[in-house]
């Protein structure tokens, strides 16, 4: 990878109000560019809000829609990752995140794992994506996973195998877990353990640090804040270095932070712990095929 200064926009969204959210995006993009960032990352569904339910078709955008053209224009100065409901060519709606650069759409990640359990009902309204792929940018190889995707370790494994240096994780994760058992900070490794965070944010911290440490990648996690239909989004956005340590961590409030990601750290980590070099794709593939066969046979 090359040196990258990334801006994390931990922000609220107005539910269903694409035009208002687009204005907020443009303001944040301008501020991030002025702060010297090369990439600005927004949360999951940043252009629409999250608890859309039957508003989904009303806010869905095709890739050639005007709001996306406006954001593409804004990406001439700074790369942008934002979230939206995509009306795909098959006319089904997907929870998508796009990477824009130089006025073009470089990559669209369609959320693969749509949680449809407990409080979540994504699979009712949106269709799943089926591709996870790293892509080349002017900063190096990047992959995007949206929120729940991270809970399936196969997703980050695939990006690792696809030689991602940086995994971006736009998210809209609600705050849950209020007992001291759940909110207790674990083994440190955090620049700001005193931050007020929900139990669910502590679980997320564990997942993201594990992802970075296992796969020797930078992880940039950008979560929503604000309240929709009684649910508070948990914030807790963070940057984790390729050694699994927190480099930046936000609390529950709206916040924008900019951090320089140093390729040197990636080099040092991969030298010390050459997981990618030693990874045996043939072993993974062979065993996955065996397991898939045995599961079909059952």
């Amino acid at each position, binding site marked *: 990878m090359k040196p990258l200064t990334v801006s994390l926009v931990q922000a609220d969204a*107005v*539910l*269903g109000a694409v035009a208002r959210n687009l204005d907020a995006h443009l303001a944040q993009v301008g501020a991030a560019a002025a702060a010297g960032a090369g990439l600005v990352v927004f949360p999951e569904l940043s252009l629409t809000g999250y*608890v*859309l*339910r*039957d*508003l989904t078709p009303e806010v869905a955008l095709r890739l050639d829609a005007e709001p996306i053209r406006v954001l593409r224009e804004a990406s001439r100065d700074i790369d942008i990752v934002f979230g939206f409901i995509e009306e795909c060519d098959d006319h089904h709606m997907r929870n998508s995140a796009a990477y824009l650069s130089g006025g073009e759409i470089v990559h669209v990640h369609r959320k693969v794992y749509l949680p449809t359990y407990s409080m979540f009902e994504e699979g009712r309204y949106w269709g799943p994506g089926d591709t996870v792929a790293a892509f080349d940018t002017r900063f190096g190889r990047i992959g995007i996973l949206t929120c729940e995707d991270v809970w399936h370790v196969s997703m980050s494994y695939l990006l690792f195998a696809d030689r991602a240096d940086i995994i971006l994780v736009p998210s809209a994760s609600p*705050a849950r877990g*209020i*007992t*001291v*058992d*759940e*909110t207790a900070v674990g083994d440190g490794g955090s620049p700001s353990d005193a931050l*007020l*965070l*929900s139990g669910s944010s502590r679980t997320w911290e564990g997942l993201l640090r594990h992802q970075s440490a296992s796969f020797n990648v930078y992880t940039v996690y950008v979560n929503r804040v*604000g*309240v*929709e*239909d*009684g649910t*508070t989004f948990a914030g807790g956005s963070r940057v984790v270095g390729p050694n699994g340590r927190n480099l930046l961590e936000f609390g*529950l409030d709206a916040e924008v932070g900019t951090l320089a990601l140093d390729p040197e750290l990636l080099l040092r980590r991969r030298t010390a712990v050459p997981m990618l070099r030693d990874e045996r794709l043939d072993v993974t593939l062979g065993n996955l095929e065996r397991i898939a066969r045995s599961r079909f046979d059952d």
Partner: protein
Amino acid sequence: MPARASTIDAALVERLLVGFIREEVASAGLTDAVLGLSGGIDSAVSCALAARALGPEHVLAICMPYASSDPASERDAREVVSNTGVRFDVVEITPQIDAYFAAVPDADRMRRGNKMARERMTILYDRSAAERALVIGTSNKTELLLGYGTLFGDMASALNPIGDLYKIQVFALARHLGLPASVIDKPPSADLWAGQTDEEEMGFGYDEVDALLLEMVERRLDDSQLAAEGYDPEFVTRVRRMIVSSQFKRRMPLIAKLTDRTINQDFRYPRDWGR
């Protein structure tokens, strides 16, 4: 159950609930809230949270005593008002309650209690319209689960900040918020008649039932697992029956389905739609 499993991170809960009230009131395009202040701990906590979220001058607390209410209740409510700085009003409900029951003198205590709770609700919603203020709820999770509340009465509100907190957690939050000791230390009561207490009426204590509810609801233990944990099977059965039989109170009225877009079944929009 280890104490830590029910001990709340009170600073976090305060932050979440203050944010909830502030943002949902703003989502409704409003700045103010109104709530019933009984002198009990639940409404005291909701009041303190609303005061912190909106500013005390934007919160109207109304004490609505009936002739048989304990006079100490209004005193405690006034303590909460001086503690939180909110606006305050007292509206006696005795005349209208007595006028109604003059025609039905045989009504039992439950009917009278429900009528009083619904009378208070109509006052709150009337003041809500007059003040352009949202009604803040004061029902905790324990009473919502047990059905220990009046449907369309004290259970009615626009926003309920404490509905996901068990009673023992409401006590912990009250202490964190620095509410008056007189409110925290007295036995919880619906205050329908002098000397009434929740625990005497229900036949068990909040400590006892909250410990069980945490296992039964949060951890989803079944009856045999609860017995193995030492819970009296009769108590377990009784509590489970209370939860099941009060389910109707926790849902919107049933709508007979006729079309492809029945409200709340396949016409599903967020509450914060267009806000």
